């Protein structure tokens, strides 16, 4: 009896150690594959198998949301509709003005010998899973290497920058949101009188911090922040994409730099579809 119990405990211990060992092994293998720029066979297989189920449930939930969401959001939808109509009218007028400015800009750039910006070839993508692990500001989209997505592809929504791709599978891709604590975007103030530059960093919360802004720079609450196209890893973002709006400006203790708090233009909690710039 005692011998059988001892053997039973030994078997339990074996299973536990096997699971831990496999976990460590898969983790090391994953890191090695990522360092080589390859996708990890184990995790990508698990994801490929589970993706159709997640997609189906997500589509079902969206269908219910689009057909019956008014039952919950009826009043707020009417107010939002009114607000959107006003905004649409304002944006139409602004669009006409900007189209004219664009034509002038292109003409002047051609005269000065500048190369034109490459055409934005967008790949529309649905969000398979937003923040699959609650600890990271990441998401999984339903486009991958087969669709032309690659590492460091920029992901945007109609409102502005969402993040960049940091892992690609055949049919899915991992996107690091700009609010993630490891994310950074080279950024600048859009206002022509300022053009102050810095780096917008996420901290895992809803706001960004714009660091390395000169202490004498002219930055005010309400200023629009756009990507500057500068920086190392942050340089994956092309210049001119909306990042956010300044909500708070403070000088650091020495007064040599400013600490600027920025609210992203994209509400990450309400993301539905995004575009990948390959």
């Amino acid at each position, binding site marked *: 009896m005692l011998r059988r119990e001892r053997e039973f405990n030994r078997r339990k211990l074996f299973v536990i150690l096997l699971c831990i060992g496999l976990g460590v092994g898969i983790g090391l293998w994953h890191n090695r594959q990522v360092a080589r720029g390859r996708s990890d066979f184990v995790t*990508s297989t698990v994801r490929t198998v589970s993706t159709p189920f997640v997609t189906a449930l997500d589509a079902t939930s969206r269908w219910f949301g689009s057909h019956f969401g008014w039952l919950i959001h009826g009043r707020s939808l009417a107010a939002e509709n009114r607000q959107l109509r006003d905004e649409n009218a304002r944006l139409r007028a602004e669009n006409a003005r900007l189209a004219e400015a664009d034509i002038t800009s292109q003409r002047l750039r051609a005269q000065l010998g500048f190369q034109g910006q490459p055409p934005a070839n967008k790949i529309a993508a649905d969000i398979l899973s*937003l923040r699959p692990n609650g*600890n990271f500001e990441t998401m999984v989209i339903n486009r991958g290497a087969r669709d032309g997505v690659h590492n460091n592809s920029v992901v945007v929504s109609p409102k502005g920058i969402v993040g960049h791709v940091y892992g690609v599978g055949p049919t899915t891709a991992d996107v690091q949101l700009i609010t993630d604590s490891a994310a950074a975007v080279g950024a600048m103030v859009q206002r022509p009188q300022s053009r102050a530059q810095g780096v917008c960093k996420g901290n895992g919360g809803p706001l960004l911090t714009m660091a390395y802004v000169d202490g004498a720079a002219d930055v005010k609450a309400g200023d629009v922040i756009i990507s500057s196209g500068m920086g190392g890893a942050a340089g994956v973002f092309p210049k001119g994409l909306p990042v956010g709006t300044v909500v708070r400006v403070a000088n650091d203790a020495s007064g040599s730099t400013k600490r600027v708090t920025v609210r992203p233009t994209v509400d990450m909690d309400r993301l539905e579809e995004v575009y990948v710039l390959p």
Partner: protein
Amino acid sequence: MRREVRRLPVILFLLAAFVVHCALAGDMAIRGARPDIALTSLLVCCLFVDSSTGAALGFLVGLLEASYADQFVGSIIVSRTLTGMLLGALEERVFRDNVFMAIAAAVLGTVATETLFFLFAPQPHALRWFIRTGEASLYNGALSIPIYLVARRVAFRRT
């Protein structure tokens, strides 16, 4: 009366919980607090199994979650495996056929899992990390009640 664990339904239940988590957890955020449906289901199921089965279930959920996170893969798998093992080790030490135990397991299990993960893979902005863990543990605690009621029916057979 005792409960006999049906392993295949438990595994299918956890797989279903993971799919629900991936598809819907993002939409279930309340004031920034987000639930971890897959982890909560694991913690509830581990109340009814022994330590080795708990570790194996933790490994399964860890692998699923890690495949979608695609970073800190080993840390995610091992933290879930260890928490599953710890909860499984409570077998025959506490009275587990009780919804309050499920709530306690979900709250404390979430804290334990995230603390283990933090030890394996320290993250920047530690304060925000712990606030988020606190919010998630409370949310998971509330979520553990329906999960416990479903898990009890689906996965376990009274004999």
